């Protein structure tokens, strides 16, 4: 560790606000306004991590999101977050961070030994080895590779922090608050638009933030910020990254609050994902500096020239005392001049013959030692740069001692977001970089993203597109005049395309993934030529920085090897997100119990308070069983079944889909959608119906009641309720608009409860004494609607269990009072509630099909319902039901099974075989549902079996190899209870 590199004055830091933080258990101090990176550099900490493959010591390369090296692990326990670039972390009190990917430590890393094997570990080496000695040997090697790979370590503890999502709308979205973005926001807001300005940094200004305090650029920045702040119609979102631009001009943003140490117990969110719909979008995302490719260019202390300037001016950190600046363009001259101004010794190496206007004079005045037409060959030093070797083309190598090297290989427009929309970047030879392709209507670009390096032009462009965006959304007011810079800084570009300088050592193109020029040459040698093959073969650009500093250099190198130009070489496709985003932020509050909405019946609270154990049924929570009947489901459901078979029970069936079908053609409509006839269903009666899909598989079943000529009340299964509703609407609105029918979902309007058991009539009579429940007045499948003290009540005499049963429907808000009234009044009869498990078991005993049989694979015949199909009318699915494979023998159809081995078990999912079959292959069927039969005192099941009922009486085998079980069972009728239906008609 060297002495503090912090300058005594200057910078955008608040020296009155020191902040303590911990790095690898060392207590350190920085200031408010620092990033973690600037605070580390200020403390003289150069070595920030180890590289992915060779574990080379690495220092910070950049000052922004493009940082490939300085990835730290922040936080502990459930808050542990690996791989965070120190350059994007706003320093805050108590920040806890660790360097990563070194063993035993980053300072002393034994894994660096992999460097010695580097000649063997070129790109894609793993495709060529680790295959022997046997098939499957990779499984021996892989754990070592997996342990060596990865970057930081994540924790398995749940994240205690809170995340939010929100939706927003704006007229003009401006992405990036550099000079162009500020000018655009200023213009669009003055034109009267609602403007949203997003900036990933915690300060506005972009490149202007890197100018010295008090300089003309600094004053300009303050003016622009004040102009924008003065407009009430501009929403400024700092610390907010535009992650991606999606269809419909929707932009995903993430706003970060880590700096404020949000407290989840106070409802404060760590990150907020905003889905913003914009009517126009201004892309002012700037540009990212490229590095230079030379030997050992990854030594700590070799940094992007722009970053060196940012650290100097914004954070008052002089990264070294003796600097070498190497460049192929004018921008790095500002770094050299500012460093010299701060008393740092500077040597400037420019690959070009000459620099832009006035720069040579300025450098001479500042005492910068300028050398033209030279290139860096190699950096010296190991854990920190100690000097450089450079040479003229073909000339002798010279050395220069230094402790920081600032490099600039030109600037790549930040066109990730424009690429997300499908616009292909085009290569600009003058700029020597890719610029955005054609913009979609309503999209605009300004400033460095367009390849503009001049501040004055960036401001003018920003103003112009801000105005244009405002016109696009229909704004009428004048945007006024563009802001003007007080003086033009040296930002002329004039890059010379770099080429590979001679020199020893590894020359890195992608720092994070350790991809060197040799890897690119290897890819070329093996034929992985296209940019996508190059990327995938070498892993170039696939690190956490997604190749922000390296993609263009790599493509250029490959293009040179192939002898083609950059436009032909192209670039890989940029994918969202622009920078990595927490999975938790994307999930927002949809986690834990809020992962998905929970649907509750009107009687939900009663169930909870009265001993129900609930279970998920799709989106619903339903009572599974009640504790009155037992402590575990296995015993409780049998007790509840017994109650229904011998006395009376009540269960909540509110989750059934309920659809009101009304209109003069309602009966005709039902005739079309159900396989059986409904047109002649008398008023006051209900009928069980089955619907098919167009392909003749069973879609759903349920009961539909007729309350008057034109009014039907349809019920569907819980699972298919939404599906059936949309299907009916689809038919009425697209296929048969001529039918005079309206359908309305009334699922949530009615609470439903089924009272079942031999004493059901008595029970209801106790509760509803005025209602005539006699079989004459209310026969089986009869329905009745009446008014009870102003409350409409519907009673449908139908049965799912095979017992005498009634379904009672009342408005949802009356559900609990009716439910408790029934229970209270029928208490003398011993009525109690029963849950879903008993409900499902009772129906198995009765041979009713449900979810496990209605799996979209089965036809009417398969489910034993073929006789229901009307011969006299058409219905949906009829026309495709006759296809040969649906009619031929050998299909699996519904049967009952009874267990023949009293000590064994029948299990759902067992595969069925005849006694003579070899137990292999797919069998002749399988068990869908199993229950204990209180009627027969044995386990019974519903199953699908080849030519099912033809085998009634036959003994078969049920194979369950997952538990090494084979049990004997007999095929019987699926109707285990009251096959003649006397009970339901009692």
């Amino acid at each position, binding site marked *: 560790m060297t002495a503090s590199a912090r300058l005594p004055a200057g910078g955008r830091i608040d020296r009155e606000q020191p902040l303590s933080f911990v790095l690898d258990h060392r207590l350190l101090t920085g200031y408010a306004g620092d990033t973690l990176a600037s605070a580390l550099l200020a403390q003289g900490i150069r070595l920030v991590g180890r590289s992915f493959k060779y574990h080379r010591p690495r220092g910070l390369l950049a000052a922004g999101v493009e940082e490939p090296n300085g990835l730290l692990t922040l936080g502990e326990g459930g808050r*542990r977050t690996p791989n965070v670039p120190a350059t994007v972390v706003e320093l805050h009190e108590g920040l806890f961070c660790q360097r990563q990917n070194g063993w035993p430590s980053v300072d002393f890393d034994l894994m660096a030994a992999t460097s010695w094997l580097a000649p063997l570990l070129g790109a894609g080496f793993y495709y060529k080895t680790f295959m022997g000695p046997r098939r499957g040997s990779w499984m021996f090697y892989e754990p070592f590779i997996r342990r060596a790979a990865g970057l930081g370590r994540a924790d398995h503890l749940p*994240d205690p922090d809170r995340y939010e999502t929100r939706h927003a709308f704006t007229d003009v979205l401006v992405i990036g608050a550099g000079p162009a973005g500020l000018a655009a926001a200023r213009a669009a807001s003055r034109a009267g638009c609602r403007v949203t300005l997003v900036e990933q940094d915690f300060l506005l200004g972009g490149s202007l933030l890197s100018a010295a305090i008090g300089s003309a650029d600094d004053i300009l920045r303050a003016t622009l910020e004040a102009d924008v702040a003065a407009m009430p119609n501009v929403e400024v979102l700092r610390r907010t990254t535009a992650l991606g631009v999606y269809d419909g001009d929707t932009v995903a943003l993430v706003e970060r609050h880590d700096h404020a140490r949000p407290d989840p117990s106070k409802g404060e969110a760590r990150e907020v994902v905003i889905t913003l719909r914009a009517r126009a979008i201004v892309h002012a995302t700037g540009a990212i500096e490229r590095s230079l490719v030379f030997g050992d260019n990854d030594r700590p202390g070799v940094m992007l020239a722009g970053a060196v300037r940012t650290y100097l001016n914004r954070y008052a950190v002089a990264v070294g005392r003796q600097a070498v600046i190497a460049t192929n363009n004018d921008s790095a001259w500002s770094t050299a001049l500012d460093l010299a101004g701060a008393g740092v010794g500077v040597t400037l190496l420019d690959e070009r013959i000459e620099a832009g206007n006035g720069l040579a004079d300025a450098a001479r005045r500042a005492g910068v030692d300028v050398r033209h037409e030279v290139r860096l060959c190699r950096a010296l030093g190991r854990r920190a740069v100690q000097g450089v070797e450079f040479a003229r083309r073909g000339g002798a190598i010279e050395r220069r001692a230094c402790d920081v090297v600032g490099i600039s290989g030109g600037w790549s427009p930040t066109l990730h977001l424009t690429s997300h929309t499908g616009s292909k970047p085009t290569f600009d030879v003058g700029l020597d970089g890719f610029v955005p392709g054609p913009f979609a209507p309503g999209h605009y670009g300004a400033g460095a993203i367009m390849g503009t390096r001049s501040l004055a032009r960036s401001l003018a462009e920003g103003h112009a597109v801000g105005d244009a965006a405002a016109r696009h959304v229909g704004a009428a007011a004048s945007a006024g005049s563009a802001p003007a810079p007080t003086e033009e800084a040296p930002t002329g570009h004039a890059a010379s395309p770099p080429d590979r300088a001679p020199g020893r050592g590894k020359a890195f193109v992608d720092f994070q993934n350790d991809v060197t020029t040799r890897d690119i040459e290897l890819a070329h040698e*093996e034929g992985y030529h296209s940019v996508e093959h190059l990327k995938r073969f070498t892993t170039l650009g696939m690190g956490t920085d*997604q190749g922000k500093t390296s993609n263009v250099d790599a493509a250029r190198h490959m293009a040179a090897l192939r002898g083609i130009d950059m436009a032909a070489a192209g670039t890989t496709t940029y994918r969202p997100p622009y920078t990595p985003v927490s999975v938790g932020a994307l999930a927002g509050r949809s986690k834990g119990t809020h992962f998905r909405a929970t649907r509750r019946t009107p009687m939900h609270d009663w169930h909870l308070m009265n001993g129900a154990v609930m279970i998920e049924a799709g989106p619903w929570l339903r009572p599974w069983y009640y504790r009155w009947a037992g402590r575990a489901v296995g015993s409780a459901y049998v007790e509840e079944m017994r109650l229904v078979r011998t006395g009376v029970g009540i269960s909540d069936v509110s989750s059934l889909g309920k659809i009101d079908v009304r209109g003069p053609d309602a009966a005709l409509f039902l005739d079309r959608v159900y396989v059986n006839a409904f047109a002649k269903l008398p008023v006051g009666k209900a009928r069980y119906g089955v619907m098919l899909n167009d392909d003749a598989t069973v879609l759903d079943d349920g009961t539909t009641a007729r309350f008057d000529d034109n009014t039907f009340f349809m019920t569907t299964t819980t699972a298919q309720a939404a599906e059936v509703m949309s299907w009916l609407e689809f038919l009425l609105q697209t296929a048969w608009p001529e039918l005079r029918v309206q359908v309305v979902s009334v699922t949530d309007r009615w609470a439903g409860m089924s009272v079942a058991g031999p004493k059901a009539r008595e029970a209801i009579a106790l509760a509803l004494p005025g209602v005539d429940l006699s079989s004459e007045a209310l026969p089986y499948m009869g329905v009745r609607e009446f008014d009870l003290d102003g409350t409409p009540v519907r009673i449908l005499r139908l049965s799912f269990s095979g017992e005498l049963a009634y379904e009672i429907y009342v408005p949802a808000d009356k559900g609990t009072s009716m439910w408790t009234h029934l229970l209270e009044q029928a208490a003398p009869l011993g009525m109690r509630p029963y849950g879903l498990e008993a409900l499902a078991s009772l129906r198995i005993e009765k041979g009713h099909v449900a979810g496990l049989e209605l799996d979209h694979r089965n036809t009417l015949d398969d489910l034993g319902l073929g006789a229901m199909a009307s011969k006299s009318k058409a219905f949906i699915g009829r026309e495709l039901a006759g296809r040969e494979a649906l009619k031929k023998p050998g299909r699996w159809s519904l049967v009952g099974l009874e267990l023949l081995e009293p000590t064994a078990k029948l299990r*759902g999912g067992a595969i069925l075989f005849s006694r003579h079959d070899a137990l292999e292959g797919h069998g002749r069927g399988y068990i869908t549902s199993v229950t204990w039969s209180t009627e027969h005192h044995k386990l019974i099941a519903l199953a699908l079996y080849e030519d099912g009922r033809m085998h009634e009486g036959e003994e078969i085998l049920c194979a369950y190899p997952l538990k090494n079980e084979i049990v004997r069972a007999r095929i019987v009728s699926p109707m285990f209870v009251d096959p003649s239906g006397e009970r339901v008609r009692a």
Partner: protein
Amino acid sequence: MKFLSRYSALALARRALTNARWQRAWRSPDPKPSYDVIIVGGGGHGLATAYYLASRHGIRNVAVLERGYLGSGNVGRNTTLVRSNYLLNGNTQFFEHSLQLWEGLSHELNFNVMLSQRGQIVLAHGPSQLDVLARKGNTMRLNGIDAELMERADVQRFLPFLDYSEQSRFPIYGGLFQSRAGTVRHDAVAWGYARAADRLGVDIIENCEVTGFQRDGDRVIGVETTRGLIHAGRTAISVAGHSSQVAAKLGLRLPIESHILQAFVTEPIKPFLDCVVSFGAELFYISQSDKGGMVFGGHIDGFNTYTQRGQFPKVQTIAECAVALIPSMSRLRLLRHWGGIQDMTPDGSPFIGRTPFRNLYLNAGWCYQGFKATPATGWCLAHTIAHDEEHPLIRHLALDRFERGNGHDEYGLGLWTYKQ
């Protein structure tokens, strides 16, 4: 200069220590005027077909035509899962054959495709869901395929960091584990097949788009391409999401819609998850790559498109699943998400085999499952082309199966699942 063709540790050492150089992985030939077989589509399936034609059927005068760069389609965009936990008769055998081919593939191709058999668990979130899985597991065992049923406690011992808390919206009830399932390095599959096919004489022609077909009555006799007319004895179409587009050039309408399926990867981290986990509450699956990224995916976006761009709400839905399944995923950071065009079919099963045109074969409609099928598809399609008769393992996947009522709905989700 000496060129190294065969891959081995020794060859790596020779490349490092001598001036020997690697032979190109595959040549870049110009198309010949005519081939015995032309395969349209240089993805995993097309390349595997070419390789097996050359290596198993002695048909080496073969061209693979690729519109973009080799492997630019779904073989390089998927979540790299391989498994053979299939229920229906036909599917079980086909995918098991595929898995067995995967198990020998690195040796077969002399290219390490990094088959990592760390297992896959499919979770159940209720008793009936576990029964459905049990049926599948029993079927697998009865077909000689490994499968293991886990109760909740077994799952918790195995993967202690899933959500077993009271807060879990869909509590884990159990699961079905296949230990031989796992992942494969997807690009390596395309490259490995390409290199091996190339060595056997197959011409792999990139940047060559098919613009039309030459016909003689109901026979297809050649293809028109952006690099000229090429005659073909037999032609196979294997272009995944673009199947309808290519078939339309012959006036064929297919039971296919093209949809986008998104895939996701986080930043690389040290070993975090040692197997593949499939959520049971919604379609969601996750694994960790050798490089360290958590790779995951879910359902298609839900409307047909050829844009290869996903919708943001789906990104959020998938992230929600990740956190619901593994709460500590919350802190990991999504690095990249992308889309591939899926050829979706009414019953979720593909079509492989002959077509209404003589000498024309189709391989399409792979929905979510094309990658794991790559070796077996190549194997069976090569057989079908060579013999002009469907391989027994794909007889249930005929293009005209809906005419006869032979839909093959592996997951029991019904017609055109996406409409739900």
